């Protein structure tokens, strides 16, 4: 056999078949060298101009040591070769280049049909068989083409499943990263608190916050479950009595959150107000450590159609009351800022000691706890009043809309975290 003494290179190409088999390419052997795992690819060249489809595998074994060409095991799909090599032989002779490669066409015969995809360790002896094969019967060719299509289809399905798995892992990874980020933020935050603070106090603060974080994580999970239950219940048109139970537990769940916040506010009010325990998009809308009741009404009301005349009037009044209460609280908070600011800034700056001012300011800051409590109280009262105005079914829809809204805000935060990085300037 002509090429046995020369070093051989293996080019294994693979072309994924799409539906049908079309003329792909005629490659010039020896000109395309592939890298890395592409070496495990297999190429098919097909000449559809002839009456019988001709498929040739060109496998050129890369083996510096072995003088004989070897069939490199690879993930071959089941391509049934129909061999004919006469044409190739001519190409070879033309392109023979002693420096780079010498290619050898190996005739792969029908045995491949029975091989498994991943094992094919048969040594194929290079043949000198360059004569034209008699054309196979058409139906056999058709069958082989069909098998090729089948194999390609299976490959595509596998690829799809793999990508799906990747996507799921990716989402999980993002969630973990977010949790980590939140923990880090809290760690940095706690670092600021711990600096120079009493060990005893910081111990309490730490455990209060840690407890809240855990509870809040659970709260969000339960919230999600409740939303799904509400959705199912509303679509299933269950009775009002059963719906009422869901509504009550939904409302109670929010009240539970306010209780949790009140507890942790006593430990560290800045933690609650900063909103670091929430996702970034939620934080954007934060007002005194939570959602703004008037915003809530804006989100809810469009979802509640149709409302009676009376209900529209009552909702209108509620919107106005909410706004007035919010403004009062906001102004009170501004006054607190002014007070703390002037206290901290007070006293002669020339003095080194500022302890009195800071100590006094500390006392005033205690009022922040009241603000958080009052804000949550306002949220609670607004929810209560809405439930008085609405029918059970409307209240259920309202709770669903509210829960879904926050859920989407959280999703927005997740999406934001994973946005592609800004392209760096050259």
């Amino acid at each position, binding site marked *: 056999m002509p090429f046995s003494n020369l070093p051989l290179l293996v080019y294994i190409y693979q072309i994924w078949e799409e539906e049908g088999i079309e003329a792909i390419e005629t490659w010039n052997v020896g000109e395309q060298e592939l890298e890395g795992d592409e070496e495990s690819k297999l190429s098919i060249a097909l000449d559809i101009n002839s009456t019988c489809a001709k498929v040739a595998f060109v496998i050129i074994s890369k083996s510096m040591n072995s003088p004989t060409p070897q069939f490199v095991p690879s993930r071959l799909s089941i391509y049934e070769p129909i061999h004919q090599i006469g044409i190739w032989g001519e190409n070879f002779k033309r392109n023979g280049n002693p420096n780079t490669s010498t290619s050898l066409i190996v005739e792969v015969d029908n045995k491949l049909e029975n091989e498994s995809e991943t094992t094919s360790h048969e040594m194929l002896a290079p043949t000198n068989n360059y004569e034209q094969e008699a054309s196979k019967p058409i139906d056999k060719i058709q069958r082989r083409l069909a098998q090729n299509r089948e194999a390609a289809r299976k490959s595509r399905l596998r690829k799809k499943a793999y990508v799906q798995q990747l996507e799921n892992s990716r989402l999980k990874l993002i969630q973990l990263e977010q949790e980590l980020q939140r923990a880090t933020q809290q760690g940095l935050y706690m670092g600021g608190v711990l600096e120079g603070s009493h060990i005893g106090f910081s111990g309490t603060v730490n455990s209060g916050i840690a407890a809240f974080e855990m509870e809040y994580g659970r709260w969000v999970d339960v919230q999600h479950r409740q939303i799904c239950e509400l959705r199912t219940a509303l679509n299933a048109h269950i009775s009002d009595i059963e719906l009422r139970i869901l509504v009550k537990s939904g409302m109670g769940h929010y009240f539970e959150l306010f209780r949790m916040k009140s507890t942790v506010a006593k430990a560290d009010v800045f933690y609650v107000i900063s909103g670091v325990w929430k996702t970034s998009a939620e934080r954007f809308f934060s007002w005194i450590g939570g959602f703004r009741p008037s915003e809530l009404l804006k989100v809810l009301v469009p979802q509640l159609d149709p409302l009676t005349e009376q209900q529209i009037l009552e909702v209108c009044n509620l919107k106005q009351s909410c706004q007035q*209460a919010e403004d009062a609280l906001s102004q009170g908070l501004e006054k607190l800022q002014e007070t703390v600011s002037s206290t901290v800034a007070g006293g002669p700056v020339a003095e080194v000691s500022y302890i009195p001012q800071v100590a006094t300011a500390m006392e005033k800051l205690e009022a922040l706890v009241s603000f958080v409590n009052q804000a949550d109280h306002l949220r609670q009262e607004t929810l209560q009043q809405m439930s008085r105005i609405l029918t059970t079914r409307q209240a259920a829809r309202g709770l669903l809309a509210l829960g879904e809204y926050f859920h989407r805000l959280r999703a927005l935060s997740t999406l934001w975290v994973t946005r592609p990085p800004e392209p760096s300037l050259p």
Partner: protein
Amino acid sequence: MQQAIPYKSWPLPCIDATSHRARSTTTLGHNGRGKDVLNIVSENAVIVLARKGCCMSHVVRRLLLTLGVNPAVHEIDEEDEAGVLNELGTICKGTENNKMVQLPAVFIGGRLFGGLDKVMATHISGDLIPVLKDAGALWL
């Protein structure tokens, strides 16, 4: 037409001889002696009792102002606080369930209405304005 009640500045402290509640302490300060507090409360349609510099009283005041009511605000010094609360506790026995009065405290129509919590809740449920009207603090 809405008319706000003007802020009332209450008179200098004077000893109420007819009061049967003898006060042991009569500290001479500017604000908040027990007896006077009672007078003040009964004399005003709406009055807010609060500690000095309390931001929550500011909140209550702002809210009432939005509704068209100009409440009297009586600031209590720290040293007078205990005495005043005591005094208030006696008059509130009938109304509240013997709880200590929390500051800031809102009095409407001479009676203890409640703290900021109560005011907010009542306002949200739409019942605050009727109460104010009844007390004569608001006219339509």
